[in-house]
């Protein structure tokens, strides 16, 4: 008679065999594992190097000016070593805000149209030009903005806006063409595919049963979207918007070419301004000294910090919404 424990031991025996022979672990396997691990660490190393180099180059300029003064001062005078980043921060925020205001309704409408309303054949036809829009290099957008959009704004659009909406300080002043409005419109076109494609992805995760329940209760298609689809996808669409915003904040070439490159702060959207990436693009290669280079790198550090925080928040939101509903329909 075997005891219970003997039976268990016997049954376990074959499983133990590999454990008892650690010498047979393949050396190449170890090398392969180690190599992969190193490559994984490489990504972390890249991130660390980015932070370290920006701090190393930009740090001295920040400590020269003081962080608060650097961000709040609105004078950028390279010859006197006065570095105030406010005009660039302002320009970046204004152009990105214009871009979001224009792009958000269009891309959400487009995403809703493609996922909820249009037949699948339309979706597959349209998805190609939208991905094309995402693949066009930004310098080509800048070229188009400079020679097509800016003249268009100068002649009919800005005078028309001034005539109809001129009571708002946003739409006053001489119609130059180059300026915040031009940059905002080009940015809107550029972030549209980003927001649209992520919004489509998010909308596709909405369970069909939610939609069907609303429709079964007699809702029209739009009511079903408003009551059950949009609330479910809200967090994801917010995430998509933030990713679009991140792209708008860091976009360089197209903005540099149409914003007018004037380090001033104006309330009118028609006036020329400047943005963080644009000033780096224009001045970095010909920076007049270590302090100037440093101040530009400090601007890059600022841009880096803001876009990283935005991206972290956005990814978390998109992830959350993929996992399921965050809010029940109101």
């Amino acid at each position, binding site marked *: 008679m075997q005891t219970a424990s003997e039976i268990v031991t016997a049954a376990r025996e074959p499983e133990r065999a590999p454990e008892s022979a650690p010498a047979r672990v*393949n050396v190449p*396997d170890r090398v*392969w*594992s180690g*190599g*992969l*691990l190193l*490559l*994984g660490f*490489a*990504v972390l190393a890249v*991130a660390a*190097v*980015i932070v370290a180099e*920006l701090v190393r*180059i930009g740090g001295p300029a920040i400590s020269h000016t003081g962080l608060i003064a650097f961000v709040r001062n609105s004078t950028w005078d390279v010859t006197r070593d006065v570095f105030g980043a406010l005009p660039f921060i302002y320009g970046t925020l204004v152009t990105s805000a214009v871009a979001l205001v224009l792009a958000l309704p*269009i*891309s959400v*409408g487009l995403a*809703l*149209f493609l996922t909820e*309303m*249009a037949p699948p054949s339309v979706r597959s036809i349209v998805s190609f*030009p939208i991905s*094309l*829009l995402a693949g*066009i*290099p*930004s*310098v*080509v*957008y800048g*070229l*188009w903005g*400079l*020679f*097509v959009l800016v003249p268009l704004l100068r002649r009919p659009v800005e005078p028309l806006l001034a005539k109809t909406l001129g009571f708002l300080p946003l739409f006053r002043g001489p119609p130059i063409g180059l300026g915040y409005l031009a940059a905002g419109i080009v940015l809107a076109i550029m972030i*549209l595919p980003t927001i*649209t494609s992520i919004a489509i992805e998010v909308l596709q995760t909405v369970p069909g049963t939610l939609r069907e329940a609303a429709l079964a209760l007699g809702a*029209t*298609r*739009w*009511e079903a*979207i408003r009551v059950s689809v949009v609330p479910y996808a809200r967090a994801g669409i917010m995430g998509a918007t933030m*990713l679009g915003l991140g792209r708008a904040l*860091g976009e*360089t*070439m197209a903005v540099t*070419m149409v914003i007018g490159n004037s380090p001033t702060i104006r309330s009118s959207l028609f006036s020329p301004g400047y943005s963080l*990436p644009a000033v*780096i693009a224009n001045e*970095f290669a010909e920076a007049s000294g270590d302090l100037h280079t440093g101040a530009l*790198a400090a601007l*890059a550090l600022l841009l*880096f910090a803001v*876009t*990283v925080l*935005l*991206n972290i928040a956005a*990814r978390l939101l998109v992830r959350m919404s993929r996992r399921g509903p965050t809010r029940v329909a109101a």
Partner: protein
Amino acid sequence: MKTIGVRRAVNRLMTGLCALALAVALVPLVSLLWLVISRGFAGLSFSFFTAIPAPVGEAGGGVGNAIAGTLYIVGIACLIGVPFGVGAGVYLAERGDTRLGDAVRFIAEVLSGVPSIVIGIVAYALVVIPMRRFSALAGGVALAVLMVPTLARSTEELVRLVPHSLREASLALGVPQWRTSLRVVLRTALGGIMTAILLAVARASGETAPLLFTSLNNQYWNWRADQPTASLTVQIFNYAVSPYTEWHDKAWTSALILLLLVGSLALAGRLLSRRRVR
């Protein structure tokens, strides 16, 4: 209580507005493509592909050195970026179900949102400052850093698509882990990874901002990695912001060439992945 008529009208209105969004989104695309083709086509000639830029006022000239420079810089970027990007992706797929893997994945996602001009400054600090000059190498490093996170994420997805049964069959035959990964799993995912690489190359070829102060520009042919090098994108920028109309025309023609380059790379990637599916 709204009547059914009003509700139906609202439904139709909103459907119309959403369809309008599609039209609005397509207007700039059509306008841009049309102008690049119509304004760029006039300047196309054989010498535009082979000659170096001509000074203002002189007829002829081309962007041959800039085309070559773009290919050269992107080539350097591939040599550095592809092994790291694909390798990190394989790590994420094969060993990535750990805390460390999650961290690497998240950081790769976040890094892909970092503005390219910031990466340009990092490459400046890493390469230009120690070498004391602008160079194709610095441009290549900048583009490589941009390629790594996107390549890592797409490679991971493609490797994860390989069915588990294939891996198990290989391991059951006594093939060691590393050979299974290389010869069975990676082999299977190779077509997809090539597509991912082509798309990353297409994206890198269109980058301007990180090249402005790394590879700078060059009016002449250059094949040395430690010298400033022209690129198509920087050349378009310089032509576009110049005050001369004849240079503006050259900007359009160069933009047409750039779009053809980027477009054919992306198309090649798409065709490759379509063949793989069959």
